[in-house]
């Protein structure tokens, strides 16, 4: 008998008390929890900004027109010069100046030699202060936001889900996903949290608010 059959056989024997006709859906799962921990009318983008900042990530809010300037300010603040830029990242967003942009493909040693990476995101989650990357356009493969020590992430306000249930529903699990909540951290010494271990030790999140439509 294969181990597969052995394990499955033992499971079935262990569940002798479960009636043969019981189906999984017959076991009730109450879902009385809230779909979102925000109040109607609450400023979700402001909440996202606050919660991301709680992890000691830098948060910058700007609009479309101010974006290159905001990115320049962020990069300047970190002293980052050489940055990875994934495929699909809008070239128009990139500030002009003393930065060197390194386009994909980039192997691991090349990534390791860079100061940071600049990417878009797939979603944001306000309540938990999380950005989610799904390797889609402008986000690069997973190594791109992992190996360099600095991650500058651009999130559009409309990408920010209020809470986890909404965010998970927006995401496609067939893509590899990375949920990022602040810079890398550890609580392994005395259960006291400190930031900065193997993942990027610096995280800047730039939130792009929609440009207000001109009133005629």
């Amino acid at each position: 008998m294969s181990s597969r059959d052995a394990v499955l056989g033992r499971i079935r024997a262990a569940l002798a008390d479960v009636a043969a006709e019981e189906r999984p859906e017959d076991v009730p799962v109450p879902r009385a929890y809230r779909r979102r921990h925000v109040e109607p009318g609450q400023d979700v983008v402001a909440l996202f900004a606050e919660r991301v900042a709680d992890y000691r990530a830098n948060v910058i809010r700007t609009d479309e027109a101010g974006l290159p300037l905001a990115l320049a300010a962020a990069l300047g603040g970190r002293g980052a010069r050489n940055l990875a830029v994934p495929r699909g990242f809008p070239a128009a967003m990139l500030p002009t100046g003393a930065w060197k942009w390194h386009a994909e493909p980039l192997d691991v040693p090349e990534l390791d030699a860079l100061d940071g990476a600049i990417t878009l995101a797939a979603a944001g989650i306000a309540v938990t202060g999380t950005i989610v990357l799904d390797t889609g356009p402008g986000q690069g493969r997973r190594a791109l936001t992992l190996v360099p020590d600095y991650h500058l992430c651009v999130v559009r306000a409309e990408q920010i889900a209020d809470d986890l249930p909404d965010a998970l529903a927006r995401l496609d699990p067939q893509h590899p996903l990375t949920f990022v909540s602040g810079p890398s951290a550890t609580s392994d010494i005395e259960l006291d949290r400190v930031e900065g271990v193997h993942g990027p030790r610096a995280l800047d999140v730039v939130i792009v608010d929609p440009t207000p439509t001109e009133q005629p």
Partner: protein
Amino acid sequence: MVSDPRSRGVIWLGSPAFPEAARTALADEQLRANLKRATGTIRDKRLAVAAELDDWEELRDSAAAIKKRVSRHLDHYLLALEASVTAAGGTVHWASDAAEANRIVTELVRATGESEVVKVKSMATQEIGLNEHLAEVGITAYETDLAELIVQLGDDRPSHILVPAIHKNRTEVRDLFVAEMGHWGQPAPEDLSDDPRELAEAARLHLREKFLTAKVAVSGANFAVADTGTVMVVESEGNGRMCLTLPETLITVMGIEKVIPTWQDLEVFLQLLPRSSTGERMNPYTSTWTGTTEGDGPRDFHLVLLDNGRTDTLADETGRQALACIRCSACLNVCPVFERTGGHAYGSVYPGPIGAVLTPQLVGVENAASLPFASTLCGACYDACPVKINIPEVLTHLRVKAVEGKGRASAEALAMKAAATVLDSPRLLAAAQRAAALGGKVLAREGRIGRLPGPLSGWSDTRDTPAPPAESFRTWWRKNRKEERP
């Protein structure tokens, strides 16, 4: 076909029973100070972030129900997971026990031609003793989680599910890093301080080259979604991302109970786990992957489904709820016993309250008979558990099994039997009360008894006991009330 439960790796063979092991830990003032500090820190944080969600109880109810659904239909969900992982390009393996899982992983590593693997912290591989097994066959496993690294460098044992090095304080970690990091990887700087920031930096530099060159990684899994085939690892440091992303081959060893039905179910567990575990709204990094992805991450993904005593646990209708555990460690952090003894006293990979109910079930109560008694039944663990495992209920249930294992003729069983006879008779109880009052008179000084004999000496070493009063309540009642009333 079923192997000796003691070979399942869960328990550390030769460890003394809990009361004796605890004695050693209790004598270590430094250890107790470390534990008190760490558990105190995390308790307050957990309470604060759990209180932010006014539907915390509803989330717990939902999580418990999802886990119950899975446990009652585990075969169904495992087959669904197997199908979806396979469809996504992964390979699924089934392991009856520790030996088989170790053999599968060994063969998979050998097939790559590599002799080193990097590891993400994983309770399942800790349980089966994978590192030790790999070492025997000439494969070096490098633990990359900071606390696991501390344990591995110190040739130590883990003492906590989430923070295996919780028994060590920052100064001890510093000394260990300075002494041991030089054996491989980048050594710790000579002037390393005990600031956790500097210690984390030393770990970063020490492991970096391993991460960037590793070809094979071994991980555990926090969740695996049956309907999509998605596997999830929840972590903080980025060592998980390194292992899950950079190597060419990824081998994930997962207990069969970790499967959940749907992607949507993660909305429940991802709200509960980080808050219960590290007291954060969300842990820094959560990675999910579904099979393999062209041009990103490992080319080969293997998922090893591990039984190793879980089906024995499943067979116990009361005890099977322990399989709902999501390894958050909240029960350890709130446990007044764990706070004093630390994890090593449990003699198992799974310490603390959850260990006291899981270990005896995974290896058989007779092989861990002192653990169900390693609790005051104070209930703090049940309150803290995000999936509502009624740990006190399982503890008293397992105590019955432990007692049955000792037989009906043990001194304790006979004393309990005698007590039961007395307690089921008001007449015998009254007689015993009179005898106790007389005995108390003999033993007591100024109404207090100092030393008691035999098994009660442990009690009387630190406590006075009031002498039983001359008159029991029932005697007083008979004299003062019953006689007044017709």
